[in-house]
């Protein structure tokens, strides 16, 4: 049964998702709903599979079990043609920017337009400049991606991600490794893009302060499941032990500081004993 694609239905529905990589279980019975037109942040510790989740939503990976609907379409069951049609309405911002290194900034933003439309060159030029203006990099259009700073590369990638006017945009760790000024720029860009284009934004991040400030909804995941979900203020108010540890960044708690293993004493003494043998 496909979810009906009505205006107020969730944009993305994930049900009982299970995904493993080799022997490692990444998601075990994960379910969530991502509302349309809002900013939703998926937060969780490193290695909790946040990027994997975006790849599953984008159809680059297939779930072992469970289902993912985007805009009422079940992603894993789409033919390549229909998956590509869905992706044209989906922008993704990679952590590294993932700009095409053999093209200039202008050509990078023009890339999806050139691939998918037959716009005359002057219209294309105007469109690309509009997108670059939106991220404040119109003057950098002739630069080479290799000469851009991390923050600039991410802004160009954002301009490219919105080139086809998508209705969903996925951000992979948009705040990682940025200086405070650039961080502020990216935060306001994500917020502005969401409001002005009326699109659904999904972020994965572990930068608590920025994510809480920017999001309408926050989903906390750990050990392959959703631990807590809701609007940021609600979440802070009723946080469980685990969520409190994560949101406040305490070094020890339900998530132990020590990687699980034999007891310290046992480990040391065991070593002594072996030496005696």
């Amino acid at each position, binding site marked *: 049964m496909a979810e009906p694609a009505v205006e107020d239905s969730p944009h993305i529905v994930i049900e009982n998702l299970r995904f493993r990589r080799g022997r490692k279980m990444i998601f075990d019975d994960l379910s969530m709903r991502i509302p349309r037109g809002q900013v939703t942040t998926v937060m969780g510790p490193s290695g909790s599979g946040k990027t994997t989740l975006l790849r599953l939503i984008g159809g680059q990976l297939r779930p072992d079990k469970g289902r993912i609907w985007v805009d009422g379409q079940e992603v894993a069951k789409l033919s390549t043609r229909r998956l590509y049609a869905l992706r*044209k309405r989906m922008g993704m911002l*990679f952590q590294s920017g993932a700009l095409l*290194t053999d093209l200039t900034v202008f050509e990078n933003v023009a890339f*999806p337009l050139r691939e998918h439309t037959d716009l005359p060159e002057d219209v294309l030029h105007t469109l690309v400049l509009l997108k670059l203006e939106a991220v404040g990099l119109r003057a950098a259009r002739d630069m080479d991606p290799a000469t851009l700073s991390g923050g600039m590369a991410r802004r160009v990638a954002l301009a490219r991600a919105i080139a086809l006017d998508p209705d969903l945009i996925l951000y992979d760790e948009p705040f990682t490794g940025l200086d405070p000024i650039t961080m502020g720029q990216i935060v306001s860009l994500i917020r502005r893009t969401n409001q002005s284009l009326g699109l659904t934004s999904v972020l994965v991040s572990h930068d608590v302060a920025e994510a809480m400030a920017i999001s309408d909804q926050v989903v906390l995941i750990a050990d392959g499941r959703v631990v807590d979900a809701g609007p940021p203020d609600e979440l802070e108010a009723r946080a469980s032990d685990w969520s409190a540890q994560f949101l406040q960044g305490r070094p020890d708690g339900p998530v132990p500081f020590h990687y699980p293993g034999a007891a310290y004493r046992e480990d040391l003494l065991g070593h002594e004993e072996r030496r005696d043998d």
Partner: protein
Amino acid sequence: MTDAIASLGRSSINALAVFGRAFVFLLRLLASLDVVVRRFGLTMVQIYSVGVRSLVIIVVAGLFVGMVLAYQAYITLVNFGAAEALGGVVALSLVRELGPVVTALLFAGRAGSALTAELGLMKTTEQLSAMEMMAVNPYRRIFAPRFVAGFVSMPLLAAIFSAVGVMGGYLVGVGLLGVDSGAYFSQMQSVTDWNEDVLSGVIKSIVFGFVVTWIAVFQGFNAQPTSEGISRATTQTVVVSSLAVLGLDFILTGLMFGAG
């Protein structure tokens, strides 16, 4: 002992898995070939970077190989009073063997390694992934044009190699060793057969071009997305494609000349 057997089994299974992936990759590549006709510009750019940019090394190598060949052949031929046959010997060796084989080896080192490194880096920096998310099929946009470019360039480079080699042989044979200029070329014309020699060389170079480019593009696609992974993939390209060229050369030569 059991460990050795287990690791032998493991590496055999891994090798088979890689071979399987390479084959699936090739099938997808072949299924995307219509892009070459639809957007010939993409392939042209690659022919320039794979083929035209390999010209210098091919021309220089061809010249030296031809010159050395003329020296070596002359030393033997002159003992039998057959120095006039030099042109034929040089041309036959080049067209049948050295042209396709040496070009393929140089091509693997120059263009193959560059292809692998480029694609491996594109994979590592998520460019291929980003393309997929922009609903652009990397097989059509990236892999197929590069594959066709290698496949087209290799026979042309081999032909250029042989032609320059013949001129190198002429420089040494006629210029230095005093073989008659007319005899050099008339001998060449009388012993070199179009079907038997030239065409067999062309077939070889087409096969080598196919195999070397396939290996290079696949290794880039299959590289572990780390700097170590790229370096390993690049080395693999050169090693595997060189060995494949030499092995295939033996088989093709057997097929073409063995029965006769």
